[in-house]
């Protein structure tokens, strides 16, 4: 899995209320949620972000509530991947379950700035900063988890497996 896009850089402890403020949780429609993604910290995020762009953040990304609407909203904006120094536990699981690629890579986070162009190679385990010409090694996502992500999340993945067994 390979992604390329512009970096939107955020700080530490980006909580789920910043990612998708609770007043918008009266729907679970991904497109509707995407309109308000990151609104708590960057009002215009949803209009600025382009398909393939990458969110890069500090430690404890996704802390706070268990709302799965957070990874759903991020994915629906077209963001290809989130790179952070660390992720909060529930968000980590929710991201894979909903098919949003995430990468834990502290060095890569320190090596990119807002607006940089990066290439993320999840299979090969590399983050390339195309703007600065630097490369960071990341722990590759194992093949079954890549397949889970490519299927669009846990339920789709399970159903695909079930179909293949038949």
């Amino acid at each position, binding site marked *: 899995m390979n992604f390329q896009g512009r970096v939107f850089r955020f700080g530490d*402890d980006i*909580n789920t*209320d*910043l990612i998708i*403020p*609770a*007043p918008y*949780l*009266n*729907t*679970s429609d991904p497109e509707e949620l995407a309109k308000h993604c990151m609104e*708590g*910290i960057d009002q215009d995020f949803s209009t600025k972000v382009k398909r393939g762009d990458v969110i890069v953040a500090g*430690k*404890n990304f996704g*802390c*706070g*509530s*268990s*709302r*799965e*609407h957070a990874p*759903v909203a991020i994915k629906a904006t077209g963001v290809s991947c989130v790179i952070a120094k*660390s992720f*909060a*536990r*529930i968000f980590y*699981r*929710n991201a894979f*379950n*909903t098919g949003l690629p995430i990468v834990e890579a502290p060095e890569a986070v320190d090596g990119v700035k807002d607006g940089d162009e990066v290439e993320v190679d999840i299979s090969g385990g590399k983050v390339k900063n195309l703007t600065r010409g630097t490369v960071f090694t990341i722990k590759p996502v194992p093949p079954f988890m890549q397949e889970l992500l490519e299927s669009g*999340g*846990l*339920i*789709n993945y*399970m*159903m695909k497996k079930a179909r293949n067994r038949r």
Partner: protein
Amino acid sequence: MGMTITERILAAHAGLKTVAPGELVEVKVDLVLANDITAPLALKEFRKAGAKKVFDRDKVVLVPDHFAPNKDVPSAEQCRMLREFAQEQGISHYFEVGEMGIEHALLPEQGLVLPGDVVVGADSHTCTYGALGAFATGVGSTDAAAAMISGMAWFKVPKTIKFVYRGKLQPWVGGKDLILYTIKDIKVDGASYKAMEFSGEAIETLPMADRFSMCNMAIEGGGKNGIIVPDRITEEYVKGRAKRSYQFYMSDSAAHYCETREYDVSRIEPQVAFPFLPENCKGVSEVGNIPIDQAVIGSCTNGRIEDLRIAAHVLKGRKVAPYVRLIIIPATQEVYRQAMREGLFEVFLDAKAVISTPTCGPCLGGYMGVLAKGEKAIATTNRNFVGRMGHKESEVYLSNPAVAAASAVLGRIGSPKELGL
């Protein structure tokens, strides 16, 4: 090999003699919970998976509490999804508005969660039930859907941090203050992926309501679960409520902890968490002059009858300061009735507070008391993130019910001591 209570419960539910931190285990769940925010997504996944029936209609709990009674049309649609699913599946524990409550106050009160259980809930504050000596943790909607279908969940057995609280509590200090103080110490990701086991002589005498408040906010330290070894106080709480058998698990004396932290509670005063993280705590005497526009007493953290009694004690014969709104939200219908019986509503109404039906409402900026731009609130809730209770430029300060009530009277953040109490 010694095991902690968390390890013991997970081992028992995985059908194993022992488990160790880091091990992946598949466990039977005793209860799966979802609410009007998280269930719609879970039900979507449930359908997508082609599932026809929940694994056990007595073990799936649906509580419309976040935006219920319906705050707007989309919320009404979400609540309807729960209601229709509950009817279709014959869910035993679906709580309509007239019998509902904030889930994490309601489930223990109704005896649905018991010591020794494994509970997964599509709500981060599911960790509250650890106060009963259960393993309970928040999950996303997809994981909740999978558990509704299979009755199983997988976990990495967490390492445990042991927190030991020694000494005697100061007046007006409760479980909320202990947990805020602890989060201040370890920070909001200090217990990431870990179990937080609360122990020590101050916990041994701590009432259930305070224990619930403590375990409720384990997630605010990043914890996977908060837990207290059950004892006489736990037994006293569950014996009249339980409708099935339950088991007390203990931590072995030879159990391994990745870290132990000790606190002398006699040095802890009521805590106030400043915006915009629960770790930004100060003792109430160090707060300075912070005028408030609103005070909220309620939530899954502090909306129990004990919390309302404390608020009433502070408010009795006093009035809320001019231009300040005090909103009191009993956490369940039972709490509501009990407060009414005890005459607490008279005290609240005389003080010029409003009393709401049970709802999570303002805690997450939903309704029933959202803040305008620049407004400040003190709340007995659990999160003070940017925009949590309304406008992005509003501020939430977290405290216990005594401090929230005193602040409503003072018109600024302050302690009951300032009222001569």
